[in-house]
């Protein structure tokens, strides 16, 4: 493979690669990425825990090592992130019931959305409301998609500096 093509990216470094090749579509895709982290129904630190879990499910090593999106950094609890990365969140009580409901939903979403149950959805709604359930589902879709693109586009799109 040519040196112009990178190995796997992460959802942060993906932005530059997509912007260089994708123009207006990439700008609008980025706007949606920013919007899912800034909506008011599910806190960004909760979504960050979900991002880490989805990255694990994909085996996306670069994604797990990537810095959290800017809007998730401020109120982030490193111990909670660690518990997701190590898998200890399942048996420990470090996560709030609200965080746990989102993570349990993400766990099933990441493997097969057809397997999501009404009970999983009801648990999310209990903490975040109907709008929160929709916001969580949208965010999981965008995050999951960014992880997939980051893993594959390094082999298909040249890095920005190689065009200059």
């Amino acid at each position, binding site marked *: *493979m040519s040196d112009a*093509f990178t190995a*796997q990216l992460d959802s942060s470094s993906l932005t530059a690669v*997509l912007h*260089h*090749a*994708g*123009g*207006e*579509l*990439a700008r*609008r*895709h980025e*706007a*949606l990425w920013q*919007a*899912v982290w*800034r*909506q*008011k*129904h599910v806190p960004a630190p909760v979504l960050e825990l979900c991002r880490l879990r989805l990255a694990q499910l*994909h*085996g*996306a090593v670069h994604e797990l090592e990537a810095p959290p999106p800017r809007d998730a950094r401020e109120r982030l609890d490193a111990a909670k992130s660690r518990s997701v990365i190590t898998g200890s969140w399942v048996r420990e009580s470090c996560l709030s019931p609200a965080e746990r409901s989102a993570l349990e939903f993400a766990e099933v*979403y990441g493997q097969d*959305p*057809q397997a*999501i*149950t*009404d009970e999983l*959805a*009801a648990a999310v*709604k209990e903490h975040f409301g*109907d*709008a929160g*359930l*929709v*916001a969580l*589902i*949208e965010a*999981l*879709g*965008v995050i*999951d*998609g*960014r*992880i*997939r*693109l980051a*893993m*594959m*586009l390094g*082999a*298909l*799109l*040249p890095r920005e500096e190689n065009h200059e």
Partner: protein
Amino acid sequence: MSEGLRAGTPGRATGHVIRDSSLGLVPETLQPILDLQDAIWHRASVGPAIMEMLRLRNARTVNCVFCKSVRYDIARADGLTEDKVEQIDDGFSHSTLSEREKLVLAFADLYLRTPDRVDPALAARLRREFTPEQIAHMAIGLTTCHALSRCAVSLGGMPESLPVMEMPVPA
């Protein structure tokens, strides 16, 4: 699968299929989704027929009944016939689709099934056939269709089947 929709809808109907759906409960993301959809279908460098092939390959993989039933009118106008649509299945590599169309579906399967394992030979063929802009646009279109179809499945209320319906892209 849930028989009922798992989230409510906005109280006030506007007549817009997406604004009136559960997605209308989250105004912060609604407009970015609509803006992105508009760009994908009206500005992408690959054209609506190829984008529709990606969308339908995704729909059949995710098994979103809504997405599978829809045919966007601009894709049909761009040359995507039902004969071609019928070949967007697991046997597409042996179909009568063109080599370019087969590559489009291979790109979709890479994203949908093995994004962590890019076959160098497939990568080389994709880079020969498509410009970086076209690859980026196919990637953005596919990832958006994928997120929206998984959203529809996750929200529940999916019927067992629906007839094929031609419609315009929601503006």
